[in-house]
């Protein structure tokens, strides 16, 4: 029973990792944009929805619906500041621009939304008990949302012009330019979409844990990044499987070795994957600078 419960814990945590990783995987895996400001962007977007809900007093769903376009705008802004000017420069510059932007955004978020932790409301209350195991509705909701988003993104990449364009430019930038794909517009769109997905995932996450704080950003970004590398940078389904696998492995390591080594396990796995199979579980080999 103990092990079953730990695995269920792992699945829950993994589903949150997976949800967070979708947006990251889009930005990093499909657009090949390196980012160290992802967690900070997510926290900022979630805080906007919190602000609209708790301070302005809007209905929670309305607050979320308004916060998403604002996150889109943030995505456009970050692309403008951190990426657009450097599209023809070496890629490692993204490391430094996003590090700089991350430092800025974390302090900025604290400055306008406050330094403490805030209580974020639960979307859906309630739980069911199946065979002695408790499953809350929001857990089910998170898993369903993850799968739905995966399906939706797949459609987007297959059926829409923009989506096909993004895939094309992630495969071969020069060829994509030749066939007349507007690279700048595609990247901008893809990046903002990634940020919005990240923020949406972040809202689910804080709704599950009921708390939001400005200092949560960096760890969130680091986890999303680990998951994406783990599952395969270029593969969306890989990111999802990576999320679940990492969640379960982390929880099993806590169950076996105790808590001190949980994060070490995550980083050791990260290095092993990078060294032994840089393309991750499901990704294909790519050459990033």
């Amino acid at each position, binding site marked *: 029973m103990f092990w079953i419960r730990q695995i269920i814990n792992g699945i829950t*945590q993994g589903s949150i990792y997976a949800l967070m990783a979708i947006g990251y995987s889009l930005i990093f895996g499909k657009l090949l944009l390196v980012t160290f400001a992802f967690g900070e962007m997510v926290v900022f977007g979630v805080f906007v929805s919190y602000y609209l809900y708790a301070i302005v007093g809007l209905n929670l769903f309305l607050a979320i619906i308004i916060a998403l376009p604002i996150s889109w705008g943030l995505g456009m802004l970050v692309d403008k500041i951190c990426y657009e000017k450097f599209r023809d420069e070496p890629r490692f510059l993204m490391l430094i621009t996003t590090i700089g932007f991350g430092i800025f955004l974390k302090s900025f978020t604290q400055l306008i939304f406050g330094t403490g*932790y805030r209580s974020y409301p639960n979307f859906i209350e309630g739980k069911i008990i199946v065979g002695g195991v408790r499953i809350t509705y929001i857990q089910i909701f998170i898993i369903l949302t993850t799968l739905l988003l995966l399906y939706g993104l797949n459609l987007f990449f297959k059926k829409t012009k923009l989506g096909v364009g993004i895939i094309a430019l992630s495969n071969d930038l020069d060829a994509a330019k030749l066939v007349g794909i507007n690279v700048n517009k595609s990247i901008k769109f893809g990046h903002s979409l990634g940020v919005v997905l990240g923020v949406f995932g972040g809202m689910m996450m804080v709704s599950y*844990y009921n708390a939001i704080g400005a*200092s949560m950003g960096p760890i969130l970004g680091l986890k999303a990044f680990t998951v994406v590398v783990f599952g395969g940078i270029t593969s969306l389904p890989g990111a999802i499987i990576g999320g679940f696998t990492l969640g379960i492995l982390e929880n099993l390591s806590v169950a076996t070795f105790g808590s001190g080594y949980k994060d070490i396990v995550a980083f050791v796995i990260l290095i092993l994957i990078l060294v032994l199979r840089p393309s991750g579980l499901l990704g294909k080999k790519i050459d990033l600078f």
Partner: protein
Amino acid sequence: MKRTTLILSFIFILTISLSMGVLAQTDTVKIGLSAPLTGDYAEYGENFQYSVQIAADEINAEGGIRGKEVEIVVRDSQGNPAQAAAIAQEFVNNQDIVAEIGDFTSTACLAAAPIYESAGMVQLSPTSSHPDFAPSGEYMFGIVGTQAVEGPFNVKELALNYLGLDSSAVIYINNDWGVATMENFVASAERNGLEITGTESFMEGETDYSAILTNLERDNPDGIYIAAMYQEASQIVREIDRMDWDVELFGPSSVFSMEFLKLAGEAGEGFVTNTIFYWEEDRAAVQNYVEEFEKRAGRRPNLHAAVAYDSMNILADAIERGGFDRSDIRDALAETGEYMGVTGKIKFTDAGDVVRDYLILKVVDNDWKVIE
């Protein structure tokens, strides 16, 4: 043209700010405040800043210290020991600054300690509860009370006497404070016959506690001691609630705050802790402070805020008696008799710590109530 304007205005601003610095030097006594205003502990640094400023404003309203107006020089340590050390160097070098209040974390205090010590300036930490801190130097003072005292109180009074537990698990945050809190609690539990079924730690910024709590639940303890700050503690009790785990909840005084009630909701019901500061205590000093803090910060002060307020006042008291010389302030501070602050009686031991009287608090109907 535009560029010239920009450069000129920049020079203008620079001159103004420099000359303001010069003008401000008339008849003031400066106190340095080193606190984490950004970074993960920003909230606590902010509490420091509000509280110390409130105390200073009150002192100034009554004519200052020995006729001089108090001015607080605030610096952001970001919770980083290296930054705290750089700030220490700036403070000791500024001859107008007579003493320092800060920092929030024990590691930042310890990193700055050699610099204050060799320059002979008081470092009065409101919150450093690490048993090593105050004994580390003549000029080091801590007023929150060390874990070496709070730990045994929590074992004897909370766990054994009040809750009547036979066994307890411990969950603690893996930083210097959390480890000291856990170690002191566990050591005292062993001496007093409280069985510890297991200890688990988590890193700062953790959001998911399900795995470690499931580990602890396996041994079926009567209670769980939650050595964490309010935000993590609220997450932990929510997870315990989600697990339907029926266990007595208790923890050190760091959990006591308004925000815990908001964040934990019903899951926090029945949580027992201790405190040296209680916002409904009907002493006028406490009520004035709570009111003023709420007005400025928009929230009620917690323990970490209140000790900063007391730090400023106790320092002002020492300067009043000892004068403006740095080492005279140190001596006057050490000789402080029983000072009555908003956090109760303060009297330094020979090492520079204080021994505290604790109240027991419990969450009843989503509010903190004192247990007699």
